[in-house]
Structure formats: structure tokens, C-alpha cells
């Protein structure tokens, strides 16, 4: 093995570590309080105001909103965009400098930020297919997160192997 390559291999791990720490600090100090405030102060009250009194159950924990309208056996929930499922792959993409993936990830979460509240409002207004779409979104959200994580981690392995 080329001795000069060895320290350069560790550079990618250092970059990933640095990127994860920087994104975590940014998320925890600035972004997360803002996100919680937006959801508790605006989105959830707006959803509650649209629901029928004493009929729909709308609960919020720090990462997701759960809606259980009257007459439904189980609840429909959606994960609020730009949470952990965004920041973990995002920080890895920054470290491996995958610009295309960063743009795709940002656009996807921006798209969800607009579409998911609309679907939630429609579902509360008894539009049944909106509930099905919320349910499908959960699966797609999960798989896109895992594929994004996979591409990011694969990038780290490739950089490590090349000793870049």
C-alpha cells in the first residue's frame, strides 16, 4: 500500500465526523427549536381548527403529527420534513461532496413541506384518499431516507477505498 495514501484515507472519516457534528449543532441549536415552534405554534393549531370539535384526535410529538379522525380504527401519521431523516444523509452528502444528491434531498423535503400539510387538511375534511396518500408517503419517505443513507455511506466506502 502506498504510505502516502494511508493518512488521506482517514481524511474522509474526519470530514464525515466534522460534517455530522456541524449539522447536529446547527440542527439542535437553531433548526429544531424553529421546527418545533412552527409545528406547535402554527401547523397543529391550524389542523385542530379545521377538525370537528370532539371528534378528530390530532397529536404531535417532536418528529411527527398523528391524525385519527372519527370513525377510523387506526391513526394516520406523517413525519415532519427536515428532521433527522433529512440531516443524517445531508451531512454525509456534504462530506462526500455529492451535489446532485444534496439538491434532490432538499427539493424532496421542500416538496413534502408543502404537500403533507395539504394532505393532512384534506384528510381532516374527510377526503379519504388523502389518508391513503399519507400512508403511502410514510413508506416512500422511509425508503428514500434509507437509499439516501446507502448512497452516502457507499460514497464514504468508495473514498476510503480510493484513499482520496
Amino acid at each position, binding site marked *: 500500500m502506498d504510505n502516502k495514501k494511508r493518512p488521506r484515507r482517514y481524511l474522509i472519516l474526519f470530514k464525515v465526523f466534522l460534517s455530522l457534528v456541524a449539522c447536529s449543532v446547527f440542527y439542535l441549536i437553531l433548526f429544531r427549536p424553529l421546527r418545533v415552534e412552527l409545528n406547535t405554534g402554527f401547523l397543529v393549531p391550524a389542523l385542530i381548527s379545521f377538525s370537528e370539535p370532539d371528534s378528530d384526535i390530532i397529536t404531535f410529538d417532536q*418528529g411527527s403529527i398523528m391524525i385519527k379522525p372519527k370513525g377510523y380504527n387506526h391513526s394516520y401519521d406523517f413525519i415532519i420534513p427536515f428532521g433527522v431523516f433529512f440531516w443524517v444523509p445531508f451531512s454525509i452528502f456534504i462530506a*462526500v461532496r*455529492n451535489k*446532485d*444528491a444534496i439538491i*434532490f434531498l432538499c427539493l424532496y423535503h421542500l416538496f413534502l413541506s408543502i404537500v403533507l400539510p395539504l394532505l393532512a387538511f384534506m384528510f381532516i375534511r374527510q377526503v379519504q384518499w388523502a389518508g*391513503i396518500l399519507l*400512508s*403511502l408517503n410514510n*413508506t*416512500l419517505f*422511509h*425508503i*428514500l431516507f*434509507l*437509499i439516501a*443513507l*446507502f*448512497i*452516502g*455511506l*457507499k*460514497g*464514504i*466506502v*468508495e473514498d476510503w477505498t480510493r484513499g482520496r
Partner: protein
Amino acid sequence: MHVRSVTSIRNRLNSSPALYFLIKVGVICIIMQLIYDFFLLPDGRLDLFLCESGAFLAAQCLNLIGWSTDSWGRIIAVNGYKGVEIVNGCNGLTLMGIHCGFILAYGGKTKPKLWILFGGIFLIYLANIIRIMGFALINVYLPNRWTTFHKFSAFIFLYPVMLGLWYLWTIKSDQDDILSSSRFSLV
């Protein structure tokens, strides 16, 4: 006009295999989700089997390594401590479906693909049993941290197994590495 637009979409997908792959995974997962919502969830037997067998096997494993543990249906508890109920969302079925979607969409020869598909489902099932053991033990040692542990447990026990299997498949499947970070492009 219609033929031209179909051809243009086909050309676009051919020129961007990563986008084509993502669409295929999405469609497969949507079909599986609909099958789950309309048939498996109302039937309930698959969910019940995964929850009850997971709790039972986790209890047996904990007994084997020295913690006196019992299970009652979906509930598991180390004796003398609070119990944990394994609900449908925690039985690993979602990740098994996602694993199937990825492997089916990626391509490759049929026989090894079936091995990685069913082998992967089995490994995810085993990883979920270890996760359930973790749920029971966290109630013994760090009960205040149960919610945090529950939230991030998939990152510790399930995702590494699944991502490892995907990595193995992208290397061994003899397909173009469309998910390589250096080649990944959606345009």
C-alpha cells in the same frame, strides 16, 4: 404526439438509471403498501405472528443468557420490571418490505437474488429479535431512556443489517453500480 412523449420519457429514464431505479423501488413499495393496507392489515395474522414470535424468541434468548424473562402474546418483560408490547409498527415488516423493494428493483440474476431476498428477510427478523431484547433490557437498566432508545433502535439494530445486505447485493449482482456516490445523477 403520444408516441413521441412516451419515447422521450423512455430515453430520459434510460439516460438516468438512478432515477429509473428510484421510480421502480417507489412503485414496488407502493404496491406492497397497498397489499398490506387492504389485505394483510385487516387479516392481521402476519403482523400477529411477527409480534408474538418475536417477543417469544427474544424472551427465550434472554433466558438463555441469564435474564429471567417471560412473554405473553405480544408482551415481553424481564421478571420484576415493566413489560414492553410489540405493536405492528415494531415487528420489522416495514423494513422487510423495503428490503424486498430494493432488491427486486436493482436487478441481477434470479437465483442469487432470491437468496439475498429471503436471506435478508430472515436476517432482518433475527435483528428485530435482538432489538426486542434491547427493549426489554432497557426497561431494566435505563427505563428513563426508553423513548429515545425506541426512536433510534432501528439505526443500531436494523439499518446496519439492511444496508450491509444492499451493499453486498450492489457488489455481487453483476449490474452497473448505479448507486455509486461518484456516478449518482438524476439529470
